[in-house]
């Protein structure tokens, strides 16, 4: 049973919370302008970091507010908890693991 410190309610058992996956993924500003590939990136692709990972949780059986957390996905050590809208403490997350910026895609017309 992991223990999470909700920013509003304090330390509670993990069973009071619901997981929200990778944090800091903004809803596309102009979804109608995205290509199929870019939309697929938004819908289906998320970082799957082995190590320090910025993620979201909601305190379902408490204040029901969302917040962010940096947790080590190997040791499950919680490094930081911070409010929705804030950024993780400086230097905690290596560059490139906090966003969904694509690194490489199949070229147009690539064979299935």
């Amino acid at each position, binding site marked *: *049973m*992991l223990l999470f410190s909700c920013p509003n309610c304090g330390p509670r058992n*993990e*069973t009071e919370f*619901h*997981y929200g*996956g990778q944090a800091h993924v903004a809803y596309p500003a102009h979804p109608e302008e995205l290509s*199929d*590939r870019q939309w*697929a990136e938004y*819908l*289906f*692709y*998320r*970082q*799957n*970091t*082995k190590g320090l*990972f910025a*993620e979201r949780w909601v305190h379902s059986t408490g204040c029901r507010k969302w917040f962010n957390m940096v*947790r080590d*996905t*190997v*040791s*499950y050590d919680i490094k930081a908890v911070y409010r929705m809208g804030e950024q993780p403490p400086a230097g905690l997350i290596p560059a490139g693991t906090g966003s969904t910026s*694509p*690194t*490489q*895609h*199949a*070229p147009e017309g*690539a*064979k*299935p």
Partner: protein
Amino acid sequence: MTTEHLPEHPEFLWRNPDPKKSYDAVIVGGGGHGLATAYFLAKNHGMTNIAILEKGWLAGGNMARNTTIIRSNYLWDESAAIYEHSLKLWEILPEELEYDFLFSQRGVMNLAHTLGDVRESVRRVGANQLNGVDAEWLDPKQVKELCPILNISDNIRYPVMGATYQPRAGIAKHDHVAWAFARKCDELGVDIIQNCEVTGFIKDGNKVTGVRTSRGTINTEKVGLCAAGHSSVLAEMAGFRLPIQSHPLQALVSELHEPVHPTVVMSNHVHVYVSQAHKGELVMGAGVDSYNGYGQRGSFHVIEEQMAAAVELFPIFARAHVLRTWGGIVDTTMDASPIVGTTPVENMFVNCGWGTGGFKGTPAAGLTFAHTIATGAPHTLNKPFSLERFETGALIDEHGAAAVAH
């Protein structure tokens, strides 16, 4: 006084060679799928100058940690085809691999506890039958006849309203399956390299030409990624992304009992799945831990909840004890279907996303992935399971049939 010598050591099932400087193909991941892939590359495609690189000990990942359920009762045509082909391979593999890994076709029941369950189940039975997969709908009395220890009374919160039944489904001894494939691979000339962790890829432009490992650099024409929960780690090294998330999946065994549970029972709604292994232990599992995790362990409330489910469905289990719990790392996709095919990197291929249901797919994953690697293009059976489906929208949603809460 004469010295007593130990009896001859039993024959080792595979060699432990040092990696060569180059191979025609390298499989990253020495679990069930990696071993099966190498086997079919050698057997079906004559590719024997290949190596399996395993960062730990052979089949020590999810292949050592699953609950061994084998079935093909998935909903969609594409899934039924590949899982049923896998089941047909299971039926011939003990003889082909010359290894009795105790594949026991004792059937699998997927219980229905609500009207929605019943409708979904009857539909899936129909879909299975149309696809040539053996499937029946059972009413509660028939469920009880097949599994006398199951509680079909009305005095639980979600009574059993019936079940789907696949008679040819069953279980097998997972470690022995791995060793059976490993021995044949070795016989066919495949190098199995353990304690060999891939640390990077060498590319010529967009084409992979080599692998950097903890045991040196290995040049290769082709790379097949078979690393389950670690697939994203490898993909990032290679410079592409996968739409998977790695979660802990726990399982457990009881102590040994006389045979009491004659079949495999799965319940989505009262969430647990359980069988009894040949040796006598109850083997149980349920849903993933909700958070992303590579720790090969999860939280205990997940175990407690499946205990409650198991005891409600099987009252006599209240006298059993949990002997051991453990966890694996399952790479799940949003449609609960695997990804087997090409990647954006030339000559690099990926087999991942089998999530909570990879063990049953071991033979078909191996066969189709070997075909994909050898020919550069997918086999008919894995063609629908491409990376591209996340872009085209041709998803294959098998959350219901996956029977494991994500």
